[in-house]
Structure formats: structure tokens, C-alpha cells
């Protein structure tokens, strides 16, 4: 088991980081927030230049790793664009991307059984939603039990300043496949659709640590940089330990997806749970050490923090993710890199 990203994938990530820096870097999300209509134009040409549309995350470990590296870069710059979701689109490009939605049953907005009418479309918090406002119309969806479907993105109900490009996904019966698919492909889609956005969030954690490290080294109070105070150092090191831990887990879950392991969904959920916990700690430390300025538009941290919210809340937030993982693995636990193989005759009762 080698979970390290290939040198090619790492190099691809470096190239992508520079390409987006040249395209505006931190300015990209700020421009997109001011002029949401330009969102695609600000990001897609760079993705094309990087050959991102030729990457197939289902096409083997090398391509999947390159996609993960690119998602991580998207997080670093808080790109106002669902790179992970777009690149996970079906192989035949019949839809604009793939998003995981809460609930079970056939995919699509009607699958959550919440009984809300179409009039609620676009209202964040009342049904499936994803940060896909103003991009393509048709989105493949997959639920937590692997049910696949197709939904259309509603017009956003609020400005990106408050909605971070999140919008409701509306079930379109005409677009739902005639037979709801619950086969292995649905679960593979689920694992992929969970893992890639975690790589985007990982890039955001990388950036939050990097910005905070730079800030405490530069900001002087009491005649010395904040970094000289051990109380400051220890907070940042605790956050960094969290980030390093989920980085390892992200590589492991990616490997589980790449090798098509049966427990890839469990690993993806474990990664999501861990990275949501890590994100809470990393962003809290980053904000506390940035001081009041960290909450103002003048600091990059404020933008990264705000645009991290969709990935941290959708499709499931922290406690709901924990709940989902607990239900799924029951008493069997995770396979993991070190656990003994499950005995085939050990019957695990579903909860």
C-alpha cells in the first residue's frame, strides 16, 4: 500500500498553484463575489490551460491523484468554482458534475423525503444544495446509499456574499434515469464525491495555517513577533498536527477509492468526519491568532474561512457525518490500513 501521491501529481499541483496565482490568486474569489456572472470565466480558462478537462478521476490512480492535487489547489485559493464536483462528472459528460446529497433513495432533490414543495427550491437548508449556482444546469446526484439521479440547479436565492454560491438542487422528473441505480457504481460515485471535496477543504486548511504562520511571524506586539510567545506557538502547532493528520487520512481514502476497495465509502466518511473536526480547530486558531482583522475583508483568511463553509456544511455537517459513519460501520469498525481482515463468517448486523 503506497498512499503517497505520485511525483507527477505533486508537480501538477505545483503547476496549477502557479497558474491560478498568475490568473489573479486571491483576487479571483473577490472578483467572483462582486460579479457572480464572471465566475466561470475567471476559472474555466485556467482549468482548460491545465488540461483539467482531460483528467478522468475514474481512469486510474495517476489521474485521480492529479485531480486531488488540483482540488487542493482550488482550496488554497478558495476558487469560487466547484472544481471537485465538476471533475467528478460522469465519464460520458451527460451532466455538468457530480454532487453528493443528503438523504437516501433515488438521487435527485425529491429523494430526501422532506415533503418540501418546489417553491422552496434555492432556499439553503431546506433540501439538497451545493455550491453550484450559476454554472451548468444538469447535475448528477448521489445519495448516501448510492442512489443516483439527476437534478437541476435552482437560481441562487441570495448573493454570493452570504450564500457562497450555494443553491438548491431541484428534482426534474424528466431528467431522472428510468431505473434508479443502486449498484456498485453508485457507491463508487459516493466515495469519489465525498473524497474530492475533502481535498479542496484540505487546501483551505493548508492555506489557513500558512497565513496564520506568516501573520504571527510578522505581527509584533510587546516589541516582538507574536510567534515568540509560546502560548501562540502551541495553538498553531496543535492546529498543524490536526492538518497533518487529515492529510495522511486524505491520501489513504484516495488510495481506497483508486483501488476500488469495498470499504471506500467508509474511509471517505471517516476522512470527512476527521477533516470537519480539523477544520473547526484550524480555523478557530487561525481566527484567534489573526485577531479582529481576521474577520475583515482586508485579510485573506476571512475569505478562505467564509468560502470553507459550504464544504464544511454540505452535504452533511459534523454531527450528521458522525451519525452517518456510525450507522454505516456499526460494530464492525473501519478496515483501515492496520486492522486485521474481517472474518468472512462474522455476520455484522445492521443497526
Amino acid at each position, binding site marked *: 500500500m503506497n498512499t503517497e501521491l505520485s511525483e507527477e501529481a505533486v508537480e501538477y499541483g505545483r503547476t496549477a498553484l502557479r497558474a491560478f496565482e498568475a490568473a489573479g490568486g486571491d483576487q479571483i474569489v473577490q472578483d467572483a463575489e462582486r460579479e457572480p456572472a464572471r465566475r466561470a470565466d475567471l476559472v474555466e480558462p485556467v482549468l482548460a490551460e491545465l488540461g483539467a478537462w482531460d483528467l478522468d478521476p475514474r481512469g486510474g490512480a495517476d489521474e485521480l491523484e492529479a485531480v486531488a492535487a488540483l482540488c487542493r489547489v482550488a482550496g488554497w485559493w478558495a476558487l469560487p468554482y466547484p472544481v471537485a464536483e465538476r471533475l467528478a462528472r460522469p465519464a460520458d459528460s451527460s451532466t455538468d458534475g457530480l454532487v453528493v446529497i443528503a438523504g437516501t433513495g433515488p438521487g435527485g432533490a425529491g429523494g430526501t423525503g*422532506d415533503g418540501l414543495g418546489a417553491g422552496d427550491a434555492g432556499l439553503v437548508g431546506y433540501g439538497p444544495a451545493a455550491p453550484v449556482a450559476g454554472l451548468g444546469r444538469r447535475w448528477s446526484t448521489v445519495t448516501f446509499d448510492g442512489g443516483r439521479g439527476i437534478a437541476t440547479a435552482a437560481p441562487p436565492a441570495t448573493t454570493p456574499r452570504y450564500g457562497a454560491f450555494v443553491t438548491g438542487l431541484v428534482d426534474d422528473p424528466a431528467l431522472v434515469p428510468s431505473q434508479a441505480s443502486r449498484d456498485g457504481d453508485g457507491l463508487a460515485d459516493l466515495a469519489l464525491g465525498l473524497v474530492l471535496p475533502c481535498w479542496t477543504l484540505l487546501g483551505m486548511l493548508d492555506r489557513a495555517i500558512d497565513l496564520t504562520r506568516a501573520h504571527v511571524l510578522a505581527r509584533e506586539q510587546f516589541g516582538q513577533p507574536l510567534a515568540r510567545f509560546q502560548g501562540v506557538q502551541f495553538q498553531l502547532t496543535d492546529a498543524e498536527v490536526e492538518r497533518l493528520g487529515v492529510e495522511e487520512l486524505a491520501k489513504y481514502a484516495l488510495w481506497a477509492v483508486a483501488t476500488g476497495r469495498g470499504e471506500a465509502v467508509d474511509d471517505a466518511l471517516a476522512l470527512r468526519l476527521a477533516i470537519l473536526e480539523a477544520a473547526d480547530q484550524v480555523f478557530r486558531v487561525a481566527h484567534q491568532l489573526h485577531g479582529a482583522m481576521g474577520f475583515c475583508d482586508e485579510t485573506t483568511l476571512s475569505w478562505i474561512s467564509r468560502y470553507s463553509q459550504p464544504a464544511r456544511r454540505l452535504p452533511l455537517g459534523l*454531527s450528521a457525518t458522525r451519525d452517518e459513519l456510525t450507522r454505516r460501520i456499526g460494530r464492525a469498525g473501519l478496515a483501515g490500513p492496520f486492522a486485521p481482515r474481517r472474518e468472512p463468517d462474522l455476520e455484522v448486523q445492521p443497526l
Partner: protein
Amino acid sequence: MTTPAISTADLAEFRAEVRRWCRAEVPSDWRRTQAGASDDEFVRFQQEWFQRLRTAGFAVPHWPAEWGGGMPVAQQVVLYQELAAHDAPRLVLGFVSIHHAASTLLAAGTDEQRRRHLPAILDGEIWVQGFSEPEAGSDLASLRTTARREGDGFVVDGQKLWASGAAHADWCLLLARTDPAVPKRRGISYFLMDMRSPGIDVRPVRNAAGESHFCEIFLNGVVIPAENLVGPVDQGWQVAQSTLSAERGMTMLELAERLGNAGFRWLVETCRTPGPGGGRPVDDPRVLDRLAELDTEIAGLRALCRGLVERHEAGTAGPVEASVVKLYYSELLQRTMDFAVEVAGLPAHAELRKPASSGWESGAWVLDFIGSWEWTIPGGTSEIQRTIIGERGLGLPREPVVSS
């Protein structure tokens, strides 16, 4: 200043009186009318509410009797408990005026300054604190705004930051450097600055929640008459220290009572509200556990504040009690708001309007959570409070400090 002891029966009668008053005077619809209120509506409502409290003798109970206060501490505790229990609007706009400005004037002001400003504050004069600067946050003593002696006054140049509510202020409590040649704490003076003076430019700073009650104040050759100096020249640091340490007793008790009364009730209400899937958070044992934990912690906080106020009154408060209360309140507030955000789920993220005039726990949980950072960062960060508790409370060695 010790106030006379008060009998249990008198206190019960006072509580009944405050309750009657709250039932009659607290506007039942203020949360609705203050949600999304314009700046003008907010100011009008705050001024009106302040006058209503003043008429009842509840606006400045902590002031000395000759200036319109004089309420015994035991009664003040009851007053804040009842206002919190009745979810009364909070005095947000006049907070600096009735606390920081008044305590500065009472502790270090001249008779003339008191006569000019204390009655004006009762009539609605609004004050802002002009202490922090871009390079002087936690290390306030490194401030760079200068006040140069010129004729019968001072000429001020510099920049202030995080001046909460500066856009509405009539007057400013200003710290400025009058002697750049001496070690930094010794060359600072304390001024009362008229915000209508020429050369003052107030610019709002927009925060992540889209609010801009924080402001930058740019000072360009602002003339302050010498009679607006508080305390001796170059002794401003001592004046600021004495008034800052006076602020944390009853104000913290008021906040703790709010968190424990209406605040916690809102939280329980949120836990009882069915989510989009139909289930109620309160039916989840993990939610109940957290609620019980927070309720216990809040009870502890209220007891801490009560003790601090009583010991402050008796003159037996220790050197770090205020830091303990501030640290505990701020982090408990953050934990509580964080839990509320988790329970309220995604719809809370789409709740963009917080009722103005509410406390730190308004029920617009995401905005409240962001707002809770205003407690662990300003007024001495949590790191500073821990250092104070370690050094002055536990007698641990001082952290090495490079600057003088």
C-alpha cells in the same frame, strides 16, 4: 463606595416591582421591529429605551446617587436578573457612555467635566472608545497617535481602529502620545474628544458577517482644548488602567444573566424546533447531554459573577478575578453559540438578520457565533487573560518581554 445592606424582604419587594415594570414597559415586539432595523431606527429605539429605563431609575443604577444612581448592589443584581429574564432590549448604543465614560469622569475627571458630561449622558450623549490602533492591539501601550501641545490645547494626529459605534458617537475617550521620548507607558495622555471637531474622519470596517459597527477613526490635526485632558499630562495610562479595571463586575454579571436567562431559553427553543427532516434535536440524547453541560457551566459563570460583584463591593476581590470571569464568559459564550449553530443546522446560515438591540445571543446563531469572537479577542485577548492569571494569580514567572 459601599451601599447599605438591604433586607431579604425589601429585596423581594424590589424584585416584584421590577417584574411589574418589565411586564408593563418591555416592548413585546422589539425583536421583530429591531430585526433588520436601519441605523436610524436602531439609534432612535436605543435612545427611547434608555429614557424609559432612566425614568424608572434603572438606566445608571451603578452611578453615585448625586448623579442619578445609588442603587444598592444587591438590588442591581436583581435588576439585571429580571431584565434578562424578561428578555428586555440591551443598552448597546450607550454602553461605553454609561460605563467607560462615566467611570473615567467619576474616577479622574474634573468637576467641570463631570457637570458637563454626566447629565448629558443621561440625556443621550453617545461615547466611543478610541484606544486601539493598527499597531497597538493587545499591546495598547505601543500606540502611536500623537497629541502635540500647541497654544491652549493639543493637536492630534493618528489613526484609531475597532472603535465600536464610532459612526453614532458625539464624544470619544482618546488615548494619545504626548511624550514620545519616554518609555511607552509613561508618555500617554487621556483626552475627551468632541467627535464634531474638524479633522476627524470615521470609516466603517466591514466584517465577515457583513456588519460594520466597527470603525476606523482618522485624526488629522484635530484640536482638543486643554480643559478636555483627563488627569495629568502623560498620566493617561494610569487613568485608563483604573477605569478599565472598574468596568468588569456588574457589566459581566449582566451578560452572564442574559446568557443564563433569555439566551439559554432561545437555545432550548432551537433544540425543540423540528428540523427539515421532522426530528427534534432535543430528542437526541447527545443534544440533551450538551444542553445539561452548558446549563451547568452557565450556572457556574453566574455564580462567579455574583461573587466578583460582592467581593468587589466588599473590597476583597483578588487581582485576577475579573480576568477569570472574562476568560470564562468569552469562551463559554463561544462554545454555546457554536453548539447552537450545530443544532440549528443549515437554515441558521441563511439567517442574515439579527435583531439590533439584542444581547450576544440573539437567536440568529451564525451571526452570534461570529460575534462571539468579539469576546476572545478585544478587551485583552484570551491569551492576555491567561498570562495575567498565570503571572498575577499563580505567581508564575513573567513571560520574557523584549520591549520596555
